[in-house]
């Protein structure tokens, strides 16, 4: 397969500087757009390419951009482009690689996106813990300003753009795009009501596009080589390539660029090297911590948005988390719910009060204090906390996804915890502890 997003990323994972990036075709897309294409043309190419947002929801990027008021229909003032580099979804680790190893690819994508929507100010909103990426992006931005790729009158085109790296002060909810906008405004990162959508009224009340790192990294290639070329990269119905990842107890956990529609089995068995010795596959979350479990019987499905959707889960971030047969499914779901309960922004009651309640019920079951009625309580919580519309944003429904599918697929495990009065995986855990504890 042709490497697109990772063409500058080798096994040593050393970052590309401006010279190396340009030597390998970098900023060709930008030069082409600024000399030959109008913003409207660029928007049309991205729409035609069928690029879908890589931040988790898979919303078509060209369509999202088309909602930004342009020309006379836009009131005078700034427009903003924001790159969402918050990456805190449990189990997601793809954007880090793209930023640390090829910062210019992201910057070129952002300049093109800003040109398309007519933005004059742009931010890379990045989690504060990504210190290496922050430093490399800042270095790359300095190179761009020094060579006329950013600032006033870029490459003599008349288009001007400022770009800044904005490290976050923390909290998972900042990744939700309207919460992110509130964080950029110096407020508590509580999601905003929609409508109005950010495309029309976002940062400081002005039109704003928020896109994921990986989404933006695709843009230079699509503009440079066209929508038709891009569509041929996917194996199934979705276009392009995707950063896929596998974590958990497999032989070779990692992150790889592969065609959209790659079978899950290829990811797990070829790229991740299969399960570690002595372990069997029990199930997996296909796209990070807020997606539903799938089972070994789903291994031959293609990683395409609709295919995974029809199987009852979501492609999410495309980073698989593997559950093996010696890890407790109840414990895994408890870990996830604990995370989401901790990260709730506290604005709405079902999430603020409901998630800690769910966590407590799961903790009781895991600790062997569970009752059969607890399973009804969990089903009730999945129904009410999980329903879109009962909460102000998608954090709480997302939190319920692994729980709802665990109740369906691993019901036996819940029952064994309750009837046995303890976690049936406890002996394995004790074994692990013993190994870790020796020599202490």
């Amino acid at each position: 397969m042709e490497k697109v997003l990772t063409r500058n990323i080798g096994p040593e994972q050393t970052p590309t500087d401006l010279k190396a990036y340009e030597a390998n075709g970098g900023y060709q897309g930008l030069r082409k757009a600024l000399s030959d294409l109008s913003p409207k043309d660029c928007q049309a190419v991205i729409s035609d390419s069928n690029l879908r947002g890589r931040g988790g929801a898979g919303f078509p990027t060209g369509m999202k951009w088309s909602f930004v008021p342009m020309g006379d229909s836009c009131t005078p003032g700034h427009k903003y482009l924001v790159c969402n580099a918050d990456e805190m979804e449990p189990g997601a680790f793809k954007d880090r690689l793209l930023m640390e190893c090829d910062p210019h690819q992201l910057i070129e994508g952002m300049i093109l996106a800003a040109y398309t929507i007519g933005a004059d100010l742009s931010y890379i909103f990045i989690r504060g813990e990504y210190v290496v990426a922050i430093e490399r992006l800042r270095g790359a931005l300095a190179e761009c300003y020094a060579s006329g790729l950013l600032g006033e009158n870029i490459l003599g085109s008349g288009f001007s753009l400022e770009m800044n790296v904005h490290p976050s002060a923390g909290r998972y909810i900042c990744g939700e795009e309207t919460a992110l906008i509130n964080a950029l405004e110096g407020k508590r990162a509580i999601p905003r009501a929609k409508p109005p959508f950010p495309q029309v009224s976002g940062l400081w009340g002005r039109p704003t596009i928020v896109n994921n790192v990986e989404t933006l990294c695709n843009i230079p290639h699509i503009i440079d080589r066209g929508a038709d070329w891009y569509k041929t990269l996917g194996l199934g119905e979705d276009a392009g390539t995707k950063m896929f990842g596998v974590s958990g107890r497999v032989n070779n956990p990692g992150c790889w660029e592969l065609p959209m529609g790659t079978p899950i089995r290829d990811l797990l068995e070829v790229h991740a090297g299969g399960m570690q010795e002595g372990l069997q596959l029990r199930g997996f979350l296909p796209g990070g911590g807020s997606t539903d479990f799938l089972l070994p019987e789903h291994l031959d499905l293609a990683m395409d948005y609709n295919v995974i959707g029809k199987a009852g889960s979501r492609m999410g971030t495309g980073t698989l988390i593997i559950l093996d047969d010696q890890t407790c499914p109840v414990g895994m779901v408890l870990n996830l719910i604990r995370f989401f309960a901790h990260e709730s922004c506290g604005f709405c009651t079902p999430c603020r009060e409901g998630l800690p309640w769910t966590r407590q019920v799961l903790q009781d079951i895991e600790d062997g204090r569970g009752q059969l009625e607890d399973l009804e309580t969990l089903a009730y919580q999945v129904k009410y906390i999980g329903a879109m519309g009962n909460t102000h944003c998608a954090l709480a429904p997302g939190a319920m996804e692994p729980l709802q599918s665990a109740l369906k697929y691993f019901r036996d495990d819940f029952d064994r915890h309750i009837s046995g009065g303890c976690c049936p995986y406890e002996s394995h855990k004790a074994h692990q502890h013993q190994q870790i504890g020796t020599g202490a």
Partner: protein
Amino acid sequence: MNDAQMIQTDLGTVLTREEICQIDAELSHVPYKAGAAIDALKIVQAQRGWISDESLRAIAKHLEMSAEELDGVATFYNLIYRRPVGEKVILFCDSVSCWICGCDGIKAKISAKLGIDYGETTADNQYTLLPVPCLGACDRAPVMMVADDLITHLDEDKIDQLFSDVKAKDSVSVGEQ
């Protein structure tokens, strides 16, 4: 800090000239002063390690907002510290992939070695231990950050090496994070 570097405010709390300079640079990017609240907190924390009540009041005054409003912002974010922290903060990932790969045991090992639990600081003031959401390095689990360094594939030996100079003593609690 010497007196000449300080600007006195009428609340009796002070920001240094350096801090004020940096905060004012941020103000040029925002339409009203409170918009720079998080940046200002980060600037002051970078100098002082944490945000004391005095620092909070000084920043609030400079940004023309109430201390309560600014505290609402400060306490929301997990990388803004409203209590003192040690010289190095350990951000320990206990999210799902690290959990599957045995992070609970590593955490127990760190706690035993340093004599601290989440939210606590070692008696010599070197380390504070805090949990952090998934560090985006799940393929190298279990992981943590110590100050600005990402440390991957944690095991017992690594913990021993990293903290070989630390003797577990009585810890000082700085409360819930």
